Every structure is written in structure tokens, then in C-alpha cells.
């Protein structure tokens, strides 16, 4: 089941601070961020298409993938679990905070849950803007905040067969 963000159809979820530039070109309705927690592989081109616009000159993407080594232990896969409705709400809040700070930014985020193999993408953040610096700043800001605030957990599978919930706060 995909729990799709209900914000997408609500006018109240429009970004309040976004710019509307008048003129024959450069007319840009404020972009409603798209966020979702998904259970199937993330379709990166489809996610990019969500920020495309004739006024976009730069798209920055961050893709987090499962790697085979963490803290010196050989990893064979990861289970991602989410507090799904809150995780999606929190992603939406983070995206809208970015849109308030970075006028004209267009954001799309998907975080995958379930069991992922090494090399698979767990998170994709896409930010589009007329110019590159704000686009890059947005992805960087969003991934940092996401890792602090979104209720998602991961359980690593080790070569030994053991599985362990990752605690980033552990010493």
C-alpha cells in the first residue's frame, strides 16, 4: 500500500512564501512539494519530472543507497520501517520549510520502506530551481533535516545472519 500524501490536493498546502514572477515567461505558480513513503523501487526519472518546469535551469538530486559496509560490518541488506503517516507529514513539513526559505524551489521526495538489497535506493530528494546554488542548497538542507526528524528506522542484515536496528545516537 502506498500512503500518498493528502497535501497534494489541498490548496492550503501551497507554499505561502513562494514567488510568482509576472511576465510572458517566468510565470511560475508556487510549487506544492511532493513527498511520499513508498514500498516499491523509487522511479527517479518520474520523481525528477515532478519538479520540471520551463523556468527550472538546475535540478539537484540526492540518492541514498544501501552500501555493503557500515561501521566496519559487512551488510547484506536493510529493512526500513516507518511510522508511515507521520513520516510523510514530516517530509511534507521539511519540504515546505525549504520552500519558505528558498523562494522558487520545487521539491519532490520519496523514501522507500521494506527490505532493500545492497545498491538499492532508500531515499531520493529532488530540488529544481532557476539557478544551481539554491537547488543544491535545498537537497543538502533537506537530507540533513530528514535524518534528524523523520520517523524511519533501519535494521541492517549482516553476513553472520544477525540483524540489528541502527541507533545513530549510540556511542
Amino acid at each position, binding site marked *: 500500500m502506498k500512503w500518498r500524501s493528502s497535501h497534494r490536493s489541498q490548496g492550503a498546502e501551497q507554499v505561502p512564501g513562494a514567488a510568482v514572477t509576472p511576465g510572458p515567461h517566468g510565470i511560475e505558480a508556487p510549487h506544492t512539494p511532493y513527498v511520499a513513503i513508498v514500498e516499491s523501487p523509487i522511479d527517479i526519472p518520474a520523481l525528477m519530472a515532478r519538479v520540471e518546469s520551463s523556468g527550472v535551469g538546475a535540478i539537484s538530486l540526492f540518492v*541514498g543507497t544501501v552500501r555493503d559496509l557500515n561501521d566496519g560490518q559487512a551488510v547484506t541488506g536493510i529493512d*526500513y*520501517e*516507518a*511510522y508511515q*503517516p*507521520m*513520516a510523510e*507529514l*514530516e517530509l511534507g513539513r521539511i519540504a515546505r520549510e525549504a520552500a519558505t526559505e528558498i523562494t522558487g524551489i520545487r521539491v519532490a521526495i520519496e*523514501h522507500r520502506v521494506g527490505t532493500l538489497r545492497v545498491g538499492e535506493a*532508500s*531515499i531520493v530528494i529532488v530540488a529544481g530551481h532557476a539557478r544551481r546554488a539554491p537547488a543544491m542548497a535545498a537537497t543538502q538542507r533537506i*537530507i540533513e533535516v*530528514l*535524518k*534528524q*526528524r*523523520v*520517523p*524511519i*528506522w*533501519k*535494521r541492517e542484515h549482516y553476513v553472520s545472519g544477525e540483524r540489528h*536496528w*541502527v*541507533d*545513530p*545516537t*549510540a556511542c
Partner: protein
Amino acid sequence: MSIPVLLFASYADAFGGRRIDVPVDSPCAVADLISAMRMLPGGHVLPKEPLVALNQAWVTSSHPISVGDEVAVIPPVAGG
């Protein structure tokens, strides 16, 4: 009264369920709920200041809990 609490990941493993009922006095703040949870089997996993969400938004330990609130006690997050 008792409060239904949503649990996830390592906390669900430790407390033995994804939703447990925690007996508390009424009225009750987040800190009181956490104190009660420390007495339960599995309560040793809770850190000094566990993360708590009410109705899918983060709250601090002084926040009051009302009847009908969706309460989640949340392990250290590890998304991304």
C-alpha cells in the same frame, strides 16, 4: 486510565508489541507516560529523553496528553 502507545522498530521488539496500553494517572504529561513505561518489561531500552510524537507531531516531555491523542514513543530515527 491507560494510554494506548504506538511503538516501532527496536521499541516494538523490546516491549513486545507495536501497540501497548500503559497505565497512568490522569491528568498526565509525556514525562509521566515515559516514567510509567520505564517500569514495564522492556523499559530499560528507553534513553534519558525518548522521542515522543502526539498526533503525528513531535512534542517535548512537558506536553500534556489528552484522551484520544495518538501517542507514539519513537526510537532514535535512522532515515535517509
